[in-house]
């Protein structure tokens, strides 16, 4: 079973890299961009075939390591095949 974790800054937290991308796009003449958000995606191959067990274990991984709960939100997707 595969899991996909998407990690992004919480609303209101400064993202210097996204701000730099936005500025650079504008510099290149792409005027139509109103906002840029950067999202980190981590894909995990898991031994279990139980979606609920997979979910619980990935949530724990997010809390302990994958995301920084102080400034980031993590969302978990469980993908059936993988």
């Amino acid at each position, binding site marked *: 079973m595969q899991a996909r974790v998407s990690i992004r*800054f919480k*609303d*209101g*937290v*400064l*993202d*210097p890299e996204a*701000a*730099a991308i936005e*500025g650079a796009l504008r510099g290149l003449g792409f005027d139509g961009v109103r906002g840029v958000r950067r999202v980190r995606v981590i894909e995990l191959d898991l031994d279990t075939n139980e979606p609920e067990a997979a979910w619980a274990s990935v949530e724990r991984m997010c809390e302990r390591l994958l995301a*920084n709960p*102080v*400034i980031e939100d993590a969302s978990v997707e469980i993908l059936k095949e993988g």
Partner: protein
Amino acid sequence: MNAASTIVPEAAREHGLSEAEWHRVVGILGREPRPVELGIFSVMWSEHCSYKSSKRHLATFPTKAPWVVQGPGENAGVVDIGDGQVAVFKMESHNHPSFIEPYQGAATGVGGILRDVFTMGARPVALLNALRFGAPEHPRTRHLVRGVVAGIGGYGNCVGVPTVGGEATFHRSYNGNILVNAMAVGVAEKDRVFYAKASGIGNPVVYVGAKTGRDGIHGATMASAEFSEAKEAARPTVQVGDPFTEKLLIEACMELMATDCLVAIQDMGAAGLTSSSFEMAARGGCGVEMDLDQVPVRERNMTAYEIMLSESQERMLCVLKEGQEAEAAAVFEKWDLSFATVGRITDTGRMVIRMAGETVADVPIDPVAGASPVYDRPHEPAPPRLPFYAERLMSEEAPGDALLRLLGCPDLCAKRWIWEQYDHMVMADTVGRPGGDAAVVRVHGTEKGLALTTDCTPRYVEADPRLGGMQAVVEAWRNLITVGARPLAITNCLNFGNPERPRVMGQLVGAIEGMAEACRALDFPVVSGNVSLYNETDGRAVQPTPNVGGVGLIRDLGRMTGIAFDAPGLALLLVGECVGWMGASLYLREVLGREEGAPPPVDLAAERRAGDMVLGLIEAGIVRAAHDLSDGGLAVALAEMCMASGFGACLDVPDDNLSSTGWLFGEEQGRYLLALREADAQGALDLARNVGVLARRVGTTGGDTLILGAEPPISLDELRARHEGFLPRLMNGGA
């Protein structure tokens, strides 16, 4: 006062205002505050911004000397370093944010202290950090060390200012509340120093730098309250730093300062737009009108409350000369930073804030900024402790083994793992690298050097706050002397627990008294500083930690000394008295597991005599190496010199009534270990006798082992292995 206002509303309590403070707010306004006003009072009267518990005691610090250009009360202190140049410096805490989010907390601490320095017109040239972590075996310690060190390195390295020194020690009292104190030092032209004093009715108030977001709202109030387990879960107050924007801001401010546009400038630090606008207006005795619709924001729908209290990083507030906005705007546009005229200086003495056509705050400035509450909190002295001499010690451990244990202990072990992550050489002016007594940076393009150090021995302060406060100052003084610098002035960062507890308040009062006494005796005034209280978790306070940041001037870098002796066969001279003082010593704690006894006494007159004499010898060019004696005493000092130089040494252990433990590991103050050529040694001893300083020959350099009297020799490799081993092992998971 109407009936409703006699009851303290929930909102006031949530804002950390006491009942008396709430009534004072209502009295000042003649009505109940609007929400934005409540937020303003809350942050401006927080301990962090108002120094309400410490103010009356801080006033006892000596702050003047002929070379002091600006003392406390500005963004940073300023001292004259000759040739029309000044050094600008300050130390500040970022303890609470660093405990919650170590990387960003430490990084933004570095960013904030840099802004305090370049806002005065000084180009930052060096950073130092005094770090106190919990016990190495505590489950959070490793995570916090890793994050804090990476954050300091990440920000400092990106912004291109070398991190050249500091301290890192460990004690269980910091398990739930680490201390991260950052110090920045800059150099400016004496006639181009800028101050944060608003003036000129009608002058525009201008916002520059990064945009305002919802980060760090109420950081100042958070820094003024204790931690608890529950509070740790609620954490909306972390700011994220952007060192590249800071670099742009440094260059833009330097460029603006070269024009003739600027009247006043201040960093938006804790309490952001609120504290910067109120403090600048209060210093200038004027009023301000601000229109928050003009403030550059990063997010939509931000309220006036959020804009006034945001602690977004990399922002400055300036007062410009009227009519020169366009010239200044061009500078910030060039560096791709926001620039907005957000208000005007008025003569009303009031802060009037509008947003969307509505007045959201209208308060008199002085009672908020200048006349905030001042408390004389009850304080209780620490219970006296008994002296503790070496005779009473019964240790099975051989002196050589005790030395190895001390060199490898968390407080004394090599901090290479930390400082190797810092770019300590950027700018190419670092001449005294981390690991010595004081770091040294060249004043660019000259033969002068600035010597920089941070010092404090918290276990001494805990045992006897007054003596501990004195000791922090004299150790900084000695560390500057040993590199050949004339000590100029200090900044400090006083980290204590909850001042509402008389015992904690007693520590603060005692430490300030001791520091003030030492500064007076040594002509070593305090020119800037910061107080961080409520460093507690669930009622357990940290060890009292009044960190001292010392700055000294080396007139000729050719005469600079270090701890490494450069040849075998040099005479080792011990300056200062030996009595075998073991109370509150590192030996007692690390070898015998006991944290007790009175700390070593400090004789300020003797410190001054010894320091002046050692500096004279160094300036005369006859000292080949010098080291201050502190933690671990004579044996540790000599071992550190050997490791730094690659030569061994032979140390005499006198057969007199002083036990060898006391001789080797006692922590008497006012002592130095010097290495001189044989031909110069007798002259130095004669000079010492003439000026009334005790000095004696204690050994000779040479070989590749350290020999302590009749003990078996210890190879330099073994010393290094123990000294270098601890931190990498801890950080790689062992310890």
